[in-house]
């Protein structure tokens, strides 16, 4: 099924949820509200066969509201097609429902996202840090976290 047809069906079923549809370099991205993310992901998996969640990550758009964007890169192993879903997450108490019940692989990806960006996943089975030590303070991939590490001067660009 073409990406266009999928977008049409998504719009028909979740008309109130769709915020934006973008096509760039042949890749389709649909931005949706975060409230129905599990239902939308389940729909993508069951009705369109996107059985593999390739990747899940967060992006920090510091200075914009909402601040964070969750990104789900989906793949259909039968038709070999890709699709991308995004959902904005507000900075205040950043949280979104887990999709680990839809794709088991989301478990570790979401832990990584919590660890590095500080986005909480509701109903996640194992919400612990994964890459940083358990007692680490802060979330290193946030734009306001200095690249040299904590307790250092923020990065001011290259000196050359």
């Amino acid at each position, binding site marked *: 099924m073409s990406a266009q047809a999928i977008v049409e069906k998504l719009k028909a079923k979740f008309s109130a949820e769709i915020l934006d549809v973008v096509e*760039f*370099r042949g*890749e389709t*991205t649909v931005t949706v509200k975060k409230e129905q993310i599990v239902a939308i992901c389940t729909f993508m998996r069951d009705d369109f066969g996107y*059985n*593999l*969640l*390739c*990747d899940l*990550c967060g*992006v*920090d758009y510091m200075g914009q509201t909402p601040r964070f964007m969750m*990104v789900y*890169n989906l*793949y259909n*192993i039968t038709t*070999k097609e*890709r699709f*991308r879903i995004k959902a904005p997450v507000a900075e205040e108490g950043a949280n979104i429902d887990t999709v680990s019940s839809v*794709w*088991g*692989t989301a*478990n*570790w*990806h979401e832990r990584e996202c919590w660890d*590095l960006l500080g986005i909480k996943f509701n109903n996640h089975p194992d919400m612990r*840090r*994964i*890459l*940083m*030590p358990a007692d680490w303070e802060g979330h*290193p*991939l946030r734009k306001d*976290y200095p*690249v040299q590490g904590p307790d250092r001067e923020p*990065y001011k660009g290259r000196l*050359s």
Partner: protein
Amino acid sequence: MAVNNSETMTINMGPQHPSTHGVLQLILELDGEIVTKATPHIGFLHRGIEKLSEHRTYHQIIPLTDRLDYLAPMSNNLGYVLAVEKLLGITDEIPERVQRIRVIMAELTRLKSHLVWLATHALDIGAMTVFLYCFRERECITDIYEKVSGARMTSNYFRVGGLSADLPDGLEGEIRDFAESMPGHIEEYEGLLTGNRIWQKRTIGVGKISAEAAIDIGITGPALRASGVDWDLRRDNPYSGYDDYDFEVPVRTGCDTFDRYKVRLDEMRQSARIVLQALDKLKPGPILADCPKIVLPSKKDVVNNIESLIHHFKIVTEGFKTEPGEIYHGIEAPKGELGFYLVADGSAYPFRMKIRPPSFVNLQGLPQMVEGRLLADVVAVIGTLDIVLGEIDR
């Protein structure tokens, strides 16, 4: 070592255990010799490559990608440069010679990675000789690496829009000799292992995972193909001219360690085939795309042409800017799908770079594969997943 009241024992394995292939820590709960629960702990090698990338120009990130899966540096280079080329929209402008050389090096890298996998996997299970044989052949590939890029492991050879240098004189013959000798060597390894009764006992039926469970957990690459899923990005979403080569995608349905071993060996045979085909089709030509604002001009142009001098200066000091946008590009790395998700804001630095490392996702399947099995199988399963902590921890 701790004993709790339910009569299971909790033991720690790693991160300094030789069979964990790096710094993987496993907390194992044992009931006698049976593993009842396995909890992987990762992150000991975290260097913040994604964070560092946000502060480097697109060209400066290539050396960082070498250090992801350090047993297959050129695959990482390839995945990254293809992603940036897609972001820039110059995928169609890459010269044919560049694509051929990229394929040759990527397939040699697959052989290199699989040779280390076979060597260490067999060593973990107790077959010492194979280790020495595999490293003998790996040495040839490392020598080829050294001749094309100057480095034996961290190659940093591919560039956005091309290559850092052309193949040196006489190397094509050397690569051809090596690729022609490879099927014979694979026979040698198979002779030592496939019919070996100890090898069979340690691998057949060990670490089983069904196709559905494997897809759910996100396992990709040879581990998924050994569970009966016929999917290879080189054939199904071709990149870098892979649709131009005749090769088979080995698929087996045993779902166990033995079939994963067979799939990888068959893949090595196919890789040697692809290398030979690419060498046959290799013609002289430019090794950089004609995109003066992106690729560095040749040294000769820089000293003779003021325009090139300016471009060289600008690219080195400022990097190149991209259109705002976001792309995801996945390639078939030796261990599975290696994906790069890039978000660009129009500056010379990526706004966000997310790496999808195959080992990170494949390792997630480990608890499912070992729980309910013997402690000794844990070592076999770590080997068969072919993990590299460099890309898991990034």
